[in-house]
């Protein structure tokens, strides 16, 4: 549904995107994850036709954005981090306007507006001015505006930014409720949010895609260098030295003398634990604890964007 190949974009001397390539299949909710300034918003702006790319191609539902911008815009709904709302308009009036811009007229428009007002629980605010609404409700109006033409692809740029915890949960629920009806590209720098809402993840860093896959796939892929620790009764320093000399497949060996703890990374998974345990027992260090850290998305993200 979305196919991006080699997107590049610079603002003056500042390189915003150096190489963005990814694919999103139909009906998925895909998290676009990255730190501030990683290139999320720029990529989304290019996909929506707000700005042009210096190089690369972006296809939505088979249409190339630079060749068929109007056709692409018919197929996407976009909710930027700051929803584009006319504050002097009433909620219902604004949604009608957004619908008319997408070519909806008459009964079709009225039914669509009424349906979205009901689905997004905007009924009590239908006749209020948008400028008088709370940020959470403005976000809902923005989402309704993006959904007005029932787009195949929905692009949401940090839709929970600046909301209180209660509003964040509501918006997340709404996005989850859209699953299956739309293909959703959802950007955020809140890891737990992406983890809870999305089927697939795309991690961007410094203007390039560093990893793409499901949460489990990413963890398994990164788990090749999983972190373990061994706690002993004495001689942690000597143990670390011995491990470094005898087991070349261990890396980043660190020691905490206070806790008598040795931590290390290895790509060999559980097999290496036998060897480590044997050296601890043979050397008389006194084994107290041996274990591996369970990986979370947070670890994956920090490792990829370090």
């Amino acid at each position, binding site marked *: 549904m979305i196919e991006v190949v080699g997107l590049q974009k610079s*603002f003056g001397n500042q390189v915003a995107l150096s190489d963005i390539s990814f694919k999103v299949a139909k009906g998925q909710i895909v998290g676009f994850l990255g730190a501030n300034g990683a290139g999320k918003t720029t990529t989304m702006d290019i996909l*929506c*036709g*707000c*700005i*042009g790319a210096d190089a690369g191609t972006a296809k939505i539902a088979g249409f190339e954005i630079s060749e068929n911008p*109007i*056709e692409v*815009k*018919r197929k*996407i709904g*976009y909710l*930027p981090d*700051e929803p*584009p*709302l*006319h504050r*002097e*308009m009433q909620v219902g009036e604004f949604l009608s*306007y*957004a619908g*008319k*811009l*997408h*070519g909806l*007229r008459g009964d079709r428009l009225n039914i669509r507006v009424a349906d979205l007002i009901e689905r997004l629980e905007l009924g009590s605010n239908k006749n209020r001015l948008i400028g008088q609404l709370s940020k959470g409700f403005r976000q809902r109006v923005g989402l309704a*505006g993006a959904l007005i033409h029932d787009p195949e692809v929905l692009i949401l740029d940090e839709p929970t930014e600046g909301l209180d915890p209660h509003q964040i949960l509501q918006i997340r629920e709404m996005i989850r409720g859209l699953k299956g009806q739309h293909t959703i590209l959802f950007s955020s720098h809140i890891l737990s949010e992406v983890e809870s809402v999305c089927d697939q993840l795309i991690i961007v860093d410094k203007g390039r895609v560093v990893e793409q896959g499901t949460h489990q796939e990413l963890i398994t892929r990164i788990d090749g260098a999983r972190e373990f620790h061994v706690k002993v009764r004495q001689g942690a320093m000597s143990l670390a030295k011995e491990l470094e000399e005898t087991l070349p497949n261990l890396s980043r060996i660190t020691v905490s003398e206070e806790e008598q703890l040795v931590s290390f990374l290895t790509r060999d998974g559980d097999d290496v634990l036998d060897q480590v345990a044997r050296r601890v027992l043979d050397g008389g260090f006194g084994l107290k604890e041996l274990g591996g850290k369970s990986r979370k998305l947070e670890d994956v993200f920090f490792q990829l964007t370090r």
Partner: protein
Amino acid sequence: MGAIATIANRDLKSFFVSFKGSVTFCFLLLLMGMFFRSFTATFIDIQAQTLQMGGEAPKLSQLTTAIFQNLHFILLFIVPATTMSSFAEESKTQVDRLLQTAPVTTLQIVMGKFVASAGALGLVLIASAVYPFFLFKYGNPELGPIFTSYLGVFLLMCAQVAFGLWVSSMVNHQFLAYLFTSFGLFLLLILAWIAPNISGAGGAEEFVKYLAATPHLDNFFSGLITVADLGYFIAFIGLFLFFTNVAVDAKRWR
């Protein structure tokens, strides 16, 4: 056409529900009213003097011409207020993304904004018809020159709106848009006055005079519609709408 009407309709409504729109509307009518009252009083005085002392009595068409010529000055303040937020404010608040992500072309956006601003000023102009109405009630003016004067002023407004939209599309603050538009329109106004001071080969004086809007209005004020004057205004409007279209499109590549 549908998209242009949708954009124009929204902007027009927004203009009249805003404080800015109401103030602009009232300010223009108030100033026109003051000019009308003052010129009518002077007209009656001169008429009375010519009756007593002899000589040619002033014509009603001269009164309307004086009013419309002064309207040109008022528009220096009114038109920028109408066009300043069209692109500049929307760009600053990022509301422009609504149009950028809608399936409409840049030309449709520009035309929608143009129709809205020209329409708002056109409505003010229609409201100002109350002054000629008084002339018809208490005098016997010629309809032709009043009609052509209104047409001339409307074309002037449209040209100024096109210029104002172009400025608004180039800056990100509506205050700057107001300032630069007023300055630019003032330059256009005084071109006819500074033209005689320009001496150079190749008819530089004539060229500068041609660029100024004022000489093109004289024929309209005296009841004449000429192809040359119509051509000037249409070319001016077309050129600046084209510039606006290019400026809005270029923002995607900055």
